[in-house]
């Protein structure tokens, strides 16, 4: 037997479990690096890549029938006639400059012959689709020479950013986006706070149904309220008169729609904050003879302040990164998220798309950072042992609150109801008979019913694969002993997706996965990349849900299991997963619903074979088929509502059968 000398550091021997767990964490860590870190890096480097035609890199000889002329550089050629200014020589990665544009007397029918070559190995030009590198002369007839294009040289620098900030049409979007997000946040938070306050502090009836209605906007894509608003207030809107001459297409429409789709997100957070306030504080305030208003200002608001701040930043983030709604109802009002789309899809200017993405990342990262800081404090408040507040009946207050909640519920129902009506009416506003023709998606652009089935397929795959990946990852982070640096890195990667707007992620995926030299390039254009992108996009919230559930488990389970010589996966399968089943179901429904409604990241990634319902909505709306777009929106709503009902039902059943131990 050898005994370790006392002076030597003990090197713990890794057991089989340690190896398995570490491989797991490595696999999921690599997954996050490949699906998140690398694409973002690709995007950042893209935003810093500038492309310019360097005319000094090309040399030309001309033969007008009397032998080859002296060699001249293309720069001399350009300088002589002053065709392009140096600013005009800036271009994108795709830029092509016809050499003949610098030859004023060029005619493709001429007999003149041309020779072109690169000066060094930095540059190249193309003839048709043939790339020509190297310093060898290439000879062309006039007819061929018109097909010769110079290609730009890549360099690294802030050129794109300089160009961005010197183009008012582009950078105006920054203030537009901030303005919209700011106004929407203030309105949503005020409305959601009052609503949550009514639910938590009044004795009004119908709280259950109000909660369900308030959650409905989560089940539809953000562009659905846009479509409803077009029907209500658009050029042929039902109650267009109410707009008083203002147009719904623009900031007004975006704000109203944003309030609609961010309302449930704000409500959930504020409701949690209100529900943890301590009844004893209210009793103390009462006993001290404070007025209701004073109690509200000194107890209620301070108690909920972290919730309010957190909700505000979440809403801000949702609005500023949203793409679908401003695309549908934004009109000429440019915002950052739509700019990315326009640059990439409209102008094929990927570098500028990357620049706008980086610009959009800044407020999103900031909002995310503040939210995380505040959330940490909220958790600290939760752990205090407090007595839950029980509201007492107060007729006038309860009635006012009921009226208010009816108003909010009415707004939500109206938006969804209008969409439903629009979907069923044959041809608004001329033929108001009901029919199902708008559901005949196969006759429209956007991929037809196939899109809807693709969306279902995507949502199911995301729900299953995402839940497995996220929960396993969270388990490893929470329970693997030691391994400090790995854990911190993993935790950082898991939190990052929340700060990355969908548009940015989608664009980053193009740069990374569409690169032919990428070994996983083959997944580009398939369903797989949509699944991967969606799982990554919604990773953070799922991860946090899993972590919360795992943290509630006794931290000594692993120790006990190891002392009984049982492998960790037995504990995982027999105890961890069953105990966390409610949280696991929550994660899967969250992923399902989001996969059904998301547009932003996937708009860049779908292919003709993988069109999706939410994107079909957008494309049909773009093509003027608004009623079918509304119909598709309602299909998404039905699917999500069904999934949620099934989830509620399954949770109940599972609770009964597998969670029997919870009841004493």
């Amino acid at each position, binding site marked *: 037997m050898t005994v370790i000398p006392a002076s030597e550091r*003990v090197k713990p021997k890794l057991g089989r479990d340690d190896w398995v767990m570490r491989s797991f964490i490595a696999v999921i860590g690599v997954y996050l690096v490949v699906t998140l870190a690398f694409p973002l890096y690709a995007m950042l480097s893209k935003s810093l890549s500038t492309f310019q035609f360097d005319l000094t890199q090309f040399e030309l000889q001309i033969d007008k029938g009397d032998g080859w002329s002296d060699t001249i550089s293309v720069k001399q050629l350009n300088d002589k006639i002053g065709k392009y200014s140096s600013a005009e020589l800036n271009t994108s990665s795709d830029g092509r400059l016809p050499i003949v544009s610098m030859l004023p007397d060029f005619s493709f029918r001429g007999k003149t012959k041309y020779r072109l070559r690169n000066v060094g190995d930095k540059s190249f030009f193309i003839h048709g689709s043939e790339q020509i590198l190297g310093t060898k002369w290439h000879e062309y007839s006039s007819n061929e020479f018109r097909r010769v294009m110079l290609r730009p040289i890549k360099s690294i620098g802030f050129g794109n950013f300089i160009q961005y900030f010197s183009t008012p049409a582009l950078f105006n979007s920054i203030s537009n986006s901030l303005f919209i997000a700011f106004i929407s946040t203030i309105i949503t938070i005020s409305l959601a706070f009052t609503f949550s306050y009514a639910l938590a502090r009044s004795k009004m009836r119908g709280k259950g149904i109000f909660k369900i209605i308030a959650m409905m906007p989560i089940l539809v894509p953000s562009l659905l309220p846009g479509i409803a608003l077009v029907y209500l207030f658009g050029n042929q809107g039902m109650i267009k008169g109410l707009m008083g001459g203002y147009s719904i297409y623009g900031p007004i429409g975006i704000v109203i729609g944003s309030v609609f789709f961010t309302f449930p997100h704000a409500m959930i957070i504020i409701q949690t904050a209100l529900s943890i306030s301590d009844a004893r504080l209210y009793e103390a305030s009462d006993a001290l003879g404070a007025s209701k208003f004073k109690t509200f200002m000194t107890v209620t608001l301070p108690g909920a302040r972290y919730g309010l701040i957190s909700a505000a930043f979440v809403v801000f983030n949702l609005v500023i990164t949203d793409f679908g709604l401003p695309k549908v109802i934004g009109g000429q009002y440019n915002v950052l998220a739509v700019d990315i789309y326009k640059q990439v899809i409209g102008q094929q200017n990927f570098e500028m798309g990357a620049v706008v993405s980086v610009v959009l990342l800044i407020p999103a990262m900031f909002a995310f950072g503040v939210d995380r800081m505040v959330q940490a404090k909220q958790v600290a408040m939760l752990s205090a042992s407090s007595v839950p507040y029980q509201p007492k009946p107060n007729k006038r207050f309860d009635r006012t609150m009921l009226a208010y909640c009816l108003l909010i519920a009415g707004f939500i129902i109206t938006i969804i109801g209008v969409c439903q009506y629009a979907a069923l009416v044959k041809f608004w506003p001329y033929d108001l008979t009901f029919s199902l023709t708008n559901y005949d998606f196969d006759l429209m652009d956007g991929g037809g019913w196939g899109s809807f089935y693709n969306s279902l397929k995507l949502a199911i795959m995301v729900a299953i694969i995402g839940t497995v990946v996220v929960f396993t990852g969270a388990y490893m982070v929470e329970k693997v002993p030691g391994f400090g640096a790995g854990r911190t890195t993993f935790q950082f990667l898991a939190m990052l997706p929340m700060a990355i707007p969908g548009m940015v992620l989608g664009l980053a995926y193009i740069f990374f996965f569409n690169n032919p030299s990428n070994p996983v390039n083959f997944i580009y254009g398939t369903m797989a990349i949509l699944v991967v992108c969606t799982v990554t996009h919604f990773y953070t919230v799922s991860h946090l849900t899993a972590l919360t559930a795992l943290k509630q488990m006794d931290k000594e389970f692993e120790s006990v299991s190891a002392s009984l010589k049982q492998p960790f996966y*037995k504990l995982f399968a027999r105890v961890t997963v*069953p105990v966390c089943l409610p949280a696991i179901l929550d994660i899967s429904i969250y992923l399902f619903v989001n996969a059904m409604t998301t547009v932003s990241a996937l708009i860049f990634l779908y292919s003709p074979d993988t069109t999706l319902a939410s994107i079909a909505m957008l494309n049909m709306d773009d093509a003027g088929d608004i009623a079918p777009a509304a119909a598709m929106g309602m299909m998404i709503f039905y699917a999500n509502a069904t999934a949620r009902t099934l989830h509620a039902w399954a949770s109940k059943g599972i609770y009964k059968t597998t969670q*029997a131990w*919870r*009841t004493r």
Partner: protein
Amino acid sequence: MNNQQAKAEPFLKVRGLTKMFGNFTALKHLDLDVSESEFVCFLGPSGCGKTTFLRAIAGLDIQTKGSIIQAGKDISALPPAERDFGIVFQSYALFPNLTVRRNVAYGLENEGKDKRAVNARVDELLKLVGLPDQADKYPAQLSGGQQQRIALARALATSPGLLLLDEPLSALDAKVRGYLRHQIKDLQEQLGVTTIMVTHDQEEALTMADRIVVMDNGIIEQVGTPTEIYREPRTLFVADFIGEMTQVEAVATSSSSAQLGNIQLATTQFDGDKGDAGVLTIRPEDILVYTSKKKSGDNIFAAKIDELEFLGSFWRAMISSDKLGSSRLKADISINVARDISLTDGMELVVELPQRSLRFYPGEKLL
């Protein structure tokens, strides 16, 4: 210790155990031997390193340096699953979604035993911990004490060579705690399993342990039987931590006497010389009181009762004397003695501080 122990190789042998968390040293070069079937308690205030020590022995937080040898096998670097121990935590750590039966059977199931054998073993263990008819309940349906007994049954299921108990009784109320103390001790004697228990409760340690390891600040202050620890605390920390102890500042006059106020007191032998300042200690119950002035000799002097407090089975008196200077002594006087001398507040009497109960710690300050 005795010769037998010195001859036999100890069951658990810890040498030079050091545990660092970053720059903080939680355990400083600990040596410890535990013999087979022994019940050892790690006792100390919170943060003294006792739980860290236990977790190092379990392999849950492997030490930075040093070796641990269990049953002749070097387990210093082994992961928990490759060691031979059962463990019980303060939180019970019972699997909430498994019945009591399946909790206890958890470690047995893949040992290749058939279901009947497993069930029989579970029944045997449940009987052992006195809960034979609770097999089909879920942990949440049991009381804290019952849950802890199930946790004990689960830890013992695989018949481990070493049983580790991490503050197993701390989460329970006083009555259940007293009962479980005996049950655990009886069980341990019955099964003869070598046991290490971590506790911050000295009463628990004194009543249950064969030997106590008193720890403070990551070092072992003293190892000994409960009586040794109580009667002959090696350091002032141990003297102060275990039981009631009066401490007064004094100066050594030889290596077995000290000057306190105007009186020179004979003490037990200590490691110091004339002139060393330090702390003199005596337990309140060791002070003897008499009424008669006949009694005279070493460590006997006239004194007066300053304060008297009734504590049920005894009186606690504060004693002052010209001889003591400004120092006052705490004395516990049993009901019987009090009756015999008709104890009253303010009375004059004669006090004896027996030499065998007086201990002097040179170089120490009052704690």
